[in-house]
């Protein structure tokens, strides 16, 4: 799959993550593969519960108790994070070379420590800065994410800030060690529209200025459209379509991608009735065999119920759909 001579920044290969719950084994990630190049922004979209967060948390080594990584491999700068030595590497890498921004800025910050403490502890731990150095740097960082009066802010507690502010603090914290990859898991979902716009603007700006790679997870195709070079669409623990953003949006191949794009309401085009994808996403405890989308798909054929395909369409674009394959080959 990996054709470029130079190893990509991050490569996830056939990642399998299962959660052992009372109801059964939740197959949250059923062979997810994607890669992110230096300086690139990858958007991962999909419905709730499709396994987006699980996939990136696996990268960060944040799959805890009921969950287990049970297959596949993750390479960061060409080196595995899952092999026996990987555990140690993960610990060195996370927070320093890979940073993460979570969805809910309300709960992602520790409520009993000041913003200052929470930013400086990263700097002091990873970069061994002194207290004073770390404080200076923290002020710079807050400045970078457009928080004014940083000196005052450092002494505040999370509950004294608004949601937007907190998300900015999270971003500042992520940028602290100048990471090469930032994983943003729905950074704007919990925010108001206008604040969301501000944060997206900030992210775009920072990404371009610092040339970091970003993985952006979202439900909202609009957000991907604004920010991402590449887009991966996830459904039921798998990536069903991946490719450069423009062609995917312009000509979605997988019926799910198409449905998703059509279901997303647009302000610039007047449509009479809203379009939805019928049915509900499958239960990941017992996902249907073959293509998981097949029960909701209007073009499903016999082959769909038997097996899954991953078909390369050129231009680094892949889709997992039999019908699409037929179309393409025709």
């Amino acid at each position, binding site marked *: 799959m990996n054709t470029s001579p130079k190893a990509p920044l991050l490569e996830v290969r056939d990642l399998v993550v299962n959660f052992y719950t009372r109801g059964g084994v939740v197959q949250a990630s059923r062979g997810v593969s994607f890669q992110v190049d230096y300086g690139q922004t990858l958007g991962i979209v999909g419905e709730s519960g499709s396994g987006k967060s699980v996939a990136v*948390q696996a990268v*960060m*080594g*944040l799959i805890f*108790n009921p969950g287990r990584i049970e297959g596949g491999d993750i390479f960061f700068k060409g080196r595995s994070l899952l092999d026996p030595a990987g555990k140690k590497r993960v*610990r*060195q*890498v*996370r*927070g*320093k070379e890979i*940073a*993460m921004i*979570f969805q*809910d800025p309300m*709960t*992602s*910050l*520790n*409520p*009993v*420590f000041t913003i200052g403490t929470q930013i400086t*502890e*990263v700097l002091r*731990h*990873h970069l061994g800065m002194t207290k004073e150095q770390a404080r200076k740097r923290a002020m710079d960082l807050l400045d970078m994410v457009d928080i004014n009066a940083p000196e005052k802010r450092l002494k505040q*507690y999370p*509950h004294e800030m608004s949601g937007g502010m907190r998300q900015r603090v*999270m971003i500042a*914290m992520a940028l602290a060690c100048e990471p090469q990859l930032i994983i943003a898991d729905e950074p704007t979902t919990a925010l108001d529209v206008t604040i969301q716009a501000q944060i997206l603007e900030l992210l775009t700006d920072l990404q371009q200025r610092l040339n970091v790679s970003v993985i952006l997870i979202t439900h909202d195709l609009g957000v991907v459209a604004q920010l991402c070079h590449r887009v991966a669409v996830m459904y039921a623990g798998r990536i069903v379509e991946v490719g450069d953003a423009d062609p995917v949006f312009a000509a979605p191949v997988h019926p799910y991608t198409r449905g998703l794009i059509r279901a997303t309401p647009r302000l610039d085009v007047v449509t009479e009735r809203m379009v939805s994808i019928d049915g509900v996403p499958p239960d990941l405890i017992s996902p249907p065999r073959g293509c998981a989308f097949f029960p909701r798909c209007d073009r499903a054929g016999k082959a769909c119920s038997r097996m899954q395909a991953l078909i390369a369409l050129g231009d680094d674009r892949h889709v997992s759909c039999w019908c699409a394959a037929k179309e393409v080959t025709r």
Partner: protein
Amino acid sequence: MGRFIYRRLIHGLIVILGVTVIVFVVTRMVGDPVQVMLPLESTPEQRAAFEKKLGLDRPIPIQFVEFMGNMARLDFGDSLWQKRPAMEIVFEKLPMTILLTAVGIGFACVLAIPLGIIAALRPGGVVDRVTVFGSLLGLSVPQFWLGLLFIVVFAVQFKILPTSGAGTPSHILLPALTMGLPTLARLVMLVRSSMIDELNRQYVKTSFAKGLPFVRVVGLHALRNAGLPIMTLVGWEVIRSLAGYSVVVETVFAWPGIGLTAIQAIEREDLILIQAIVFTAAVCVVVINIAMDFIYKLIDPRLKLT
């Protein structure tokens, strides 16, 4: 803030007032202290004289007014039993109970926090199950029985610790252990469950994602957040033992604390001493409660004291 302090103080006063009124009413309902205090064969004249001396012959309302006045001056009068100021006795015994409580609960805290954390790290693991079962067992064993058991084993069988009384540091070991064990059990359970809660919080994931070392995440970030319920329980335990729950342990080990004195006073129907003890206990409870609120504030910046 000011409003908070002021309201807490008012509430504290109400509590103390309520307690004293109840105690007053209850102790005046006691059949007749005079009878118990004097020997069996004493004459009615002796009884009458004694009653007069205690002021028990006057109407209840007058007794009450006088009582409240004296209380405000911390003067409860002389203990009937010990024939010296009741407050003097209380001040003599209270430090012993405080000492016992401090050692007992201190020991419980020192053990409970690491135990609880270790159990919380792998909920359902062997360590966890052993800890939980141990705690349940600790909660189930009656203190008085445990105390007797300790005496039999450590003092009588092995003769390594004294059976009872106070004085040397070795005297405090068994009573403190008995006192601390149920507390330890409760604390372990609480530390465990609140640590499990905290470890599932999003900010713990954030902290791990920041690359912070495990010890820092668990021991600092999570523990500090779990601190509030833990503090609450510790406060409760202190309150409980000062509010009379030390009675059992003190009785078993003849520990000369306020609990033992209370039960002796009750047995001897020394109503003056009873009043003084209950009053002091109420004040302790109120003071600790207020102190706890301030400690909460220190731990959790989200709390506004209003």
